């Protein structure tokens, strides 16, 4: 079994250890005998229809994000089409913002996004920094949690009726006000939870792998369970941090 992952602009957008998320997707696929074919997608490289099962985009410093923004805009329609055709997508932090409809900076100028996710972002004054704990309900299943860390100045507002990634138990979330974090459309997930999100939340990694395989196989796969004791232990500490010192204004 094979899975093609396309990592957008890893040379530019890698500020929060995005490599950790990729390593988790690779290992958890390999442990199940799935051959993950990792490909980078750089400036000026086209996204061909049907090539990728799963996309990843991380965050960068302001300068790096500005360097790639025009190129991403050009790739926008192909990425939207890929998700509509069943591809999975994980977008983190700056990448999450760029997938929305627009980003408005402090001067009021608007940088257009690709509109893959139904939200917009407005630059804020104070950064929202700290541990986060979310509760998520996916596909009508039992609630599950995600533990992570956020660090962003942008306030993201979901469109009416848009689906968040989860409800904030502790932390700021999208904008520090409405109690939601992230955004989800079909197999695409956007979130401010950066860095090692997937290592300590392997259920989300497996969900992305399953979505990507569904695209390829035409039906949901059966993924073998893995021994996740260390993952659970790391998540417990992270969740405890969020409960005791998660961000709030």
């Amino acid at each position, binding site marked *: 079994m094979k899975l093609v992952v396309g990592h957008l602009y890893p040379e530019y957008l890698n500020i929060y250890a995005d490599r950790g998320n990729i*390593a988790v997707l690779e290992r958890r696929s390999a442990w199940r005998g799935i051959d993950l074919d990792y490909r980078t997608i750089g400036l000026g490289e086209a996204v061909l229809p049907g090539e990728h099962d799963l996309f990843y985009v991380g965050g960068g410093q302001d300068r790096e994000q500005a360097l790639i923004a025009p190129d991403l805009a050009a790739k926008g329609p192909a990425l939207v089409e890929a998700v509509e055709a069943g591809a999975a997508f994980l977008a983190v932090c700056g990448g999450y913002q760029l997938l929305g409809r627009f980003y408005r900076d402090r001067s009021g100028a608007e940088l257009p996004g690709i509109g893959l996710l139904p939200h917009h972002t407005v630059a804020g004054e104070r950064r929202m920094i700290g541990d986060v704990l979310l509760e998520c309900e996916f596909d009508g299943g039992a609630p599950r949690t995600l533990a992570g860390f956020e660090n962003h100045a942008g306030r993201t507002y979901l469109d009416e009726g848009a689906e968040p990634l989860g409800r904030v138990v502790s932390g700021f979330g999208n904008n520090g006000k409405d109690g939601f974090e992230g955004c989800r459309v079909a197999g695409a997930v956007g979130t401010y939870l950066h860095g090692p999100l997937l290592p300590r939340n392997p259920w989300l990694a497996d969900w992305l792998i399953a979505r990507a395989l569904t695209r390829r196989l035409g039906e949901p796969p059966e993924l073998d369970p893995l021994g996740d004791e260390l993952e659970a232990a*790391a998540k417990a500490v992270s969740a405890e941090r969020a409960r005791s010192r998660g961000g709030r204004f």
Partner: protein
Amino acid sequence: MDPGAVGKLARRLPLGSAVISATNGKTTTAAMVAAIVGDRVKLAHNRAGANLVSGVASALLASDRADLGLFEVDEGAFPDIAGRIRPQAVCLGNLFRDQLDRYGELEHIAERWRTAVAELDPAAWTVVNADDPLLADIARGRAEAVRFGIDDLSVARDRLPHAADSKYCRTCGAPYDYAAAYVGHLGDYSCPRCREARPSLDVAARAIELSGLEGSSFDLVTPEGTRRVSLSLPGLYNVYNALAAASLSLVLGAGLDDVEAGLARFRAAFGRFERIAAGDRTVLLLLVKNPAGANEVVRTLVDAGAPVRLLVALNDAIADGRDVSWIWDVDFEPLVGPLQELVVSGSRAQELALRFKYGGLDPAKIALLPDLAEALAYGVEGTLPGGELVVLPTYTAMLALRQIASEQGLVRPYWEEAVA
């Protein structure tokens, strides 16, 4: 204490002050300068690493008859402290990504530094690492400047490490070409599009020989002549620290003889590279605190023959950075192959265990002992008599491990060494 008093106290120093900042190596660089100039002048020096304005104030109060102020300062605190104490020399070593939850983005720090340097007294010296593209032009327009760097292709890496910072031209945004990459994004760079490039070096290290964990030697090339310098500290990152210290000492009036002798007798600062005797075994502490620094420690260990047992300790106190994402940007993988047992410890030991598991280490080889005292005892016990346990702690884990070792009578407190 009133922060305004810092300026008043500093201005009483007959020889003025020197201020050192960098993401990595500022404590070591300052301690090297102290070894070079400390015999001749009495220093006010915040040697234990208290590098905010309060630490500078304490050092000034504790040494009221000092001649020269020698201060390492936090990257974020540099503009404020430089503005208050009006130093006669500043030394800026490097900027790497570090504790983004606390410091913010590198470009913003560099901009604040640029403004602070522009506001220094016109006669003040600016000593800067020309190999860091983010800093190289900071001395542009200054009357008195020294640009230092490494000039030795034999120690260059064949490519930039993963997650290198500042690899795009500051002027036009094109990726730099590196004729040589030395540590992180530090190297001999040039922009293929707009031709911006590393400035010419006033002080350089050439003919570098690295001798594993035992140290290194190199030709120190200066406008005043060339000397062969020996260091008891390992790794190319310490060659940079020595270059910074030598350049700063020369503008402070030291001679090349002092520089050569001071660097030769220098031993590591406080937990940066410290051997502790534990009965018939030794413990080697190598501080890690961000990807660039940790990558160099890993590289040095691998060059010296990677250890089969290792203790890594990750805390997430404010001084370590509460966000532990950075461990995923460290290239730990070269250590994984030879490892027979990894002891992980500290308040985020579980996260470290995951880092190595997903880096390819069999979880059966991982001993998870969050309690530092337990981990140290377990690690020492498992080390063969005559052998050495290598320990990579973050900042507060290093302090705690030294404290534990000290309570067991294994190490003398740093302040005793400092007086000795």
